[in-house]
């Protein structure tokens, strides 16, 4: 992309935010509220989608189980009590759509970048090490009052 890491963050942060809002509005019929940039506690779900090609990296969504259930409930239009079994799948698909929407909005990238199928980790007892050499682009939201983090880690 021929951008410095700082320029990439400056250019892509608004695009990632727009892409995320658009997916929530269209597929969940609800806009997420801005959240606080604080470390998440009680993270139970991590959904990841890889990007490979002219843009390479990982888009991830991290949240607690209540956030994931809220996402599944909104996506499927079903009560929260019934949505729990779909939480991991819904979060993976949410990550997939945000990653796809993001790359499709980048000029000239849609054809030169492919997505992996989503991976969802449940549980918090893991460590994650990315080979990214650029600080992650991070967004914090609250959805139905529950925190949720969207992050994009790019390889330059």
């Amino acid at each position, binding site marked *: 992309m021929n951008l410095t890491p700082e320029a990439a963050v400056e250019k892509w942060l608004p695009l990632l935010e727009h892409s995320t809002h*658009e*997916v929530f509005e*269209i*597929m969940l019929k609800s806009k997420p509220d801005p959240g606080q940039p604080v470390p998440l506690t009680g993270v139970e779900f991590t959904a990841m989608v890889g990007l490979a090609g002219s843009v390479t990296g990982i888009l991830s969504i991290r949240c607690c189980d209540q956030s994931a259930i809220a996402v*599944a409930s909104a*996506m*499927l*239009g079903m009560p929260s009590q019934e949505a729990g079994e*779909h939480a991991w*799948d*819904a979060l*993976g*698909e949410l990550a*997939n*759509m945000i*990653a*796809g*929407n993001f*790359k*499709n909005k980048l000029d000239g990238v*849609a*054809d*030169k970048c*492919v*997505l*992996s*199928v*989503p991976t969802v980790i449940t549980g918090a007892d893991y460590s994650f090490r990315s080979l990214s050499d650029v600080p992650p682009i991070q967004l914090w939201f609250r959805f139905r009052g529950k925190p949720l983090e969207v992050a994009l880690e790019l390889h330059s």
Partner: protein
Amino acid sequence: MKNVRALIIDDSSVMRKIVERSLRQAGLELSEVKEASNGAEALAILATSPVELILCDINMPVMDGLEFVKRLKGVENAQGVPVVMITTEGGETHVVQALSAGARGYIRKPFTTDQVKEHVLPLVEGTK
């Protein structure tokens, strides 16, 4: 439109439910909905269960959507059945590849019910 039998192919069960709901909201009366989580499963279903409409993701394990559409030409039960891709892959290359392989429509995720009406209903009207 009534009594449409549809096959929805996506590795996400959540997305399969969303696609089915969107088809109903778009005005299709579905008499039967078959589901497959990849292209290979879908081909096995079609061997015994004819349908009038196929909705298919692209990025899936085992057999992706583009390969599925190519192989569909050899399935007797599926001749003339419209296939609409519903996928996050939004590049022109993917669109051209899908349409060249035999898909009749292409919808990018995230998608609205209006897009389903626009891209799917005319194809089903043509087959009923």
